[in-house]
């Protein structure tokens, strides 16, 4: 499945471009509206669908397994802190759900990566990931796979 944009609703605000983790939502050069430039790379995370303030983005099921017009649409209301889903099945049955977006204050749990120290070259090449091992609530050394133990014929 992949996202697509209703051009009549899109106003080209750029929220979907900003949020897409696949970096496939971009701005069309002819009409300056959002467009999914690589539908087969979309993993249906629904980030852009939820972020769009005009509900201009929808997700299309591939015709071979969703041929009869199902629909999964979402309405995100920030001022109320709610996210509502409407699931329309292929036989016409509908289900509606409402959930809180978050019960935590906005921004409180977003890591301030820009304020942290820049990693040096050694850290970048290390097999230890950012904030490890402290981030895993341990101060012990983590196991690693030394390169010389790789199978012969595999190069990195």
């Amino acid at each position, binding site marked *: 499945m992949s996202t697509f944009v209703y051009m009549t609703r899109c106003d080209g605000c750029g929220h979907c471009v*900003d949020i897409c983790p696949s970096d496939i939502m971009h701005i069309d050069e002819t*009409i300056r509206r959002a467009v999914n430039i690589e539908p087969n790379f979309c993993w249906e995370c629904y980030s852009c669908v939820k972020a769009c303030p*005009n*509900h201009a983005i929808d997700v299309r099921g591939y015709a071979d397994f969703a041929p009869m017009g199902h629909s999964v649409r979402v309405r995100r209301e*920030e001022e109320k802190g709610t996210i509502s889903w409407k699931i329309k099945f292929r036989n016409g049955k509908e289900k*509606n759900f409402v959930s*809180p977006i*978050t019960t935590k204050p906005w921004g409180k749990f977003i890591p301030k990566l820009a304020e942290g120290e820049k990693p040096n070259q050694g850290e970048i090449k290390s097999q230890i990931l950012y904030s490890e091992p402290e981030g895993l609530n341990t101060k012990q050394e983590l196991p690693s796979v030394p390169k010389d133990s790789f199978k012969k014929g595999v190069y990195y």
Partner: protein
Amino acid sequence: MIFNNPFSPLSELMPSIVMQIFLITMIAFVAIGTLIDIIHKKNVKYFFQNAKKAKLSATKKLGSGEKVSIIAKTIVYDIGTTSELGAGKRRVAHLLGMYGTILFWIGSAVMIFCYSSSSSIDTPLVWPIIWHLGAIMTILGGCWFWFFLRVDVYSEANPWYRIIKADLFVLALIATSLFGLIWSYLQSLNLNDRWDDKVFLVLYVVSNLVLFGGVYWSKFAHMFYKPGAAIQKNLAEADGSRDNLPPEADAPEKFGLGIKREAPKHY
């Protein structure tokens, strides 16, 4: 300069009928360009197909009175204040450009048709003021948008000087108003038939030809499509079809406070 009708002295150079034919030609360009755009993109066909589909999933039948009230509300609020752009700079810049352009075009049409011949009565002060004010508003809104608010620049990290096809409309609009203003200013200086104002008159005419002649290639036709889409969207909300969207949440208190969205600026 702001109190002078720039088309009145022009009648010494060309008869006012030529100006009137030029204006009608520009309107014809818009109509033809939009029609070709509709045929090529099939967007109106899609629009009506979608409206028909929405009607099938409607939960409520709207009476004609309700429809008229929704359409009137959409025209005043959604279209008149471009509410879809939310609160912020983009909306203010768009409103400046939109109302500036409307004033500029109305001012041009009235002055060309009613007060452009040398024999006609003096132009009431209000029309040159509207024309100049409209041009200034268009330049302000257009330049604010083009230099600072373009989504392909602030969201995609493209350089500000990169020009794409979508810029054809806004740049032609700015050029028309800017060249028109400079031409009007030079005319008001009484340069005794010097070349300056003629050059800017030619630039003004050329930019008009690009703006109105380029409808098929530019974003010009969005002025007609967007109001139609806004009306269809609000009718779909009212009849319960809502383009398959869930209804607005009746949020219980435990859902807590709302949140504030971050503006897209991560590049």
